[in-house]
């Protein structure tokens, strides 16, 4: 791919994001503006916005890359990323909207009447956010290197600077519109090249069997790994901090459910394209799996298979979509993180928010610069394992079980964080080739452990169950009275 084309695609997305961000600043001035506007946002816009924020580097680049590497085993990733929203719909969406809480720490504090629970939840949320931003920056580094030939750090730094400026200015959060637009941009940027390549290739030679082409010779994943991965993805989604905050823009619990249904449709459509790209890569460009370039598959595929001006244009479109993915997910995470850091550590004024946003940005940037990407889909999968072991139990038990106590919540979250975090560190130290499966993919045992500790400690500390529990459970589950109902 020629550097000017890649650079142009990158700059167009950056400038467009900045312009829309600052335009949003002018039209949305106060909390009230945001709130009023948010109640008139139709479910379709809201769902597109959730999709836009959710589809990250892992979805846009990582899924196709992993399919290229490991074939059908990798198909569980997009299925899990989507089915995670089904679990969110079943167990969390409507009650969480009805709680009125804006962030996960808000929810746990109010549910358990405990500042200590709030602080532990905040720490976990900050850890999740940092862990999740790192792969986005790795993806940005990879994309800038492949598309322009510039060193990786330029891409990571560019994303952090652009996102920090828009977040600190206050532009990004207030506009559902931007995130909604990002979904459709990402879908187009992947769908157009993939459909073009499918048509282009199907006219040609006989199709080789994808299974027969195993470009890496990686052994197939065992049953344990697949199950553990699915546990992480299914139960990790409902604890992602930037996902939760979007549900607040639904007017009531019922529309939260309707929005989630649409999100499921949007994600299902989107994931067909990285899957098809992975299949195409496995059939026609298996050599891309070597040399650590697999995550760049969707960027390189148009050039490999078509070439010429058309290939360049298609590549430019993919680069634009990729940067849209890094920018939207990173900004969503950074806003959630900065909100938590500023409220709980810095006193919650606007200046504190800007310092907090800087903290939210710089830590993962440093981390991304000193580490190497080990596969985007895999590292994001680990973040899901961490949220599934920490935030998921406290949300599920908090919403559905009266017996949860503050001591139980804290003990469970800490258990999950220590076990899952410890497994992640141990697996990294051992190296990706040598770590045993139970360390490399820990969710299957860390999630039940966190649940068990949370339940047992709560049972042992029954006297600490807050007196407000009946009122709170009512608020969570009883449907809002429709406005037309005149009572």
């Amino acid at each position, binding site marked *: 791919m020629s550097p000017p084309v890649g650079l142009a695609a990158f700059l167009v997305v950056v400038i467009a994001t900045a312009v829309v961000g600052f335009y949003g600043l002018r039209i949305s*001035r*106060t*909390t009230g503006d*945001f*709130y009023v506007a948010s109640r008139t946002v139709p479910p379709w816009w809201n769902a597109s916005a959730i999709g836009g924020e959710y589809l990250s580097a892992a979805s846009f680049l990582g899924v196709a890359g992993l399919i290229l590497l490991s074939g*059908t085993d990798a*198909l*569980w990733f*997009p*299925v899990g990323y*989507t*089915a995670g929203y*089904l*679990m969110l*719909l*079943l*167990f969390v969406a*409507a009650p969480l909207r009805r*709680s*009125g*809480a*804006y962030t996960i720490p*808000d929810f746990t*504090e*109010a549910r358990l*009447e405990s500042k200590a629970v709030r602080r532990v939840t905040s720490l976990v949320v900050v850890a999740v956010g940092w862990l999740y931003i790192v792969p986005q920056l790795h993806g940005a580094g990879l994309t800038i290197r492949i598309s322009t030939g510039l060193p990786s750090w330029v891409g990571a730094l560019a994303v952090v600077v652009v996102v920090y400026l828009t977040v600190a200015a*206050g532009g990004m*959060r207030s506009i559902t519109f931007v995130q909604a637009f990002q979904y459709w941009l990402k879908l187009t940027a992947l769908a157009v090249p993939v459909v073009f390549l499918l048509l282009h290739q*199907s006219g040609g030679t006989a*199709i080789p*069997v*994808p299974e027969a082409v195993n470009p890496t010779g990686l052994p197939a994943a065992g*049953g344990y790994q*697949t199950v553990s991965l*699915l546990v992480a993805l299914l139960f990790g989604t409902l604890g992602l901090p930037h996902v939760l905050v979007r549900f607040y823009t639904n007017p009531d619990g*019922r529309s939260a*459910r*309707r929005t*989630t*249904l649409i999100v*499921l*449709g949007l994600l*299902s459509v989107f994931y*067909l394209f990285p899957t*098809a790209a992975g*299949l195409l890569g496995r059939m026609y460009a298996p050599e891309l799996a070597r040399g650590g370039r697999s995550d760049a598959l969707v960027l390189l595929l148009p050039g490999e298979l078509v070439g010429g001006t058309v290939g360049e244009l298609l590549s430019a479109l993919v680069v634009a979509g990729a940067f849209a993915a890094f920018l939207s997910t990173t900004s969503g995470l950074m806003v959630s993180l900065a909100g938590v850091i500023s409220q709980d550590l810095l006193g919650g004024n*606007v200046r504190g*928010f800007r310092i907090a946003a800087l903290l939210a940005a710089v830590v993962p940037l440093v981390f991304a610069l000193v580490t190497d990407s080990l596969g985007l889909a895999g590292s994001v999968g680990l973040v899901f394992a961490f949220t599934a072991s920490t935030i998921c139990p406290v949300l599920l038990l908090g919403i*559905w079980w009266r017996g949860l106590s503050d001591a139980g919540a804290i003990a469970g979250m800490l258990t999950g964080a220590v076990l899952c975090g410890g497994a992640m560190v141990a697996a990294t130290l051992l190296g990706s080739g040598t770590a045993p499966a139970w360390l490399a993919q820990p969710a299957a045992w860390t999630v039940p452990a966190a649940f068990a500790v949370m339940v047992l400690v709560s049972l042992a500390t029954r006297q600490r169950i807050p007196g*407000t529990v*009946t*009122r709170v*459970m*009512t*608020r969570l*589950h*009883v449907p*809002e*009275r429709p406005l037309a109902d005149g*009572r």
Partner: protein
Amino acid sequence: MTRVRVTAPQSAGRRPGGYLSGRDGFAGGRDAAVDSEVGRLYVRSLIRSQLRLAIVVAAGFLLVLAACGLMVALVPDLARLRLLGIPVNWLILGAGLYPVIGLAAWLYNRSAARNEARYRELVDER
């Protein structure tokens, strides 16, 4: 007009009692439910039926998921079978599961809304 940071609109989290105590008028109608023994009973049964529904749908979906996984793992011939030139195991995992997810979500939404409507009727009859 000056700009302020967007936060939770009621900013009730700072008040004693927090968001969930629902004394902000927004939940006024819903609070009435806990003022009597019968009301509390209705709420408990609503929560239980919603939880049962969620677990049934989740279990059904997980069964389908497990069945597909086992089928692909245990029947290697699926990789040789083609539909429109694509191996069937790829079709099942790469495209076939999404409609199942959508269907499960749609069924859940319908039944959850029905549970809530039934609760409303009970409370209003009282």
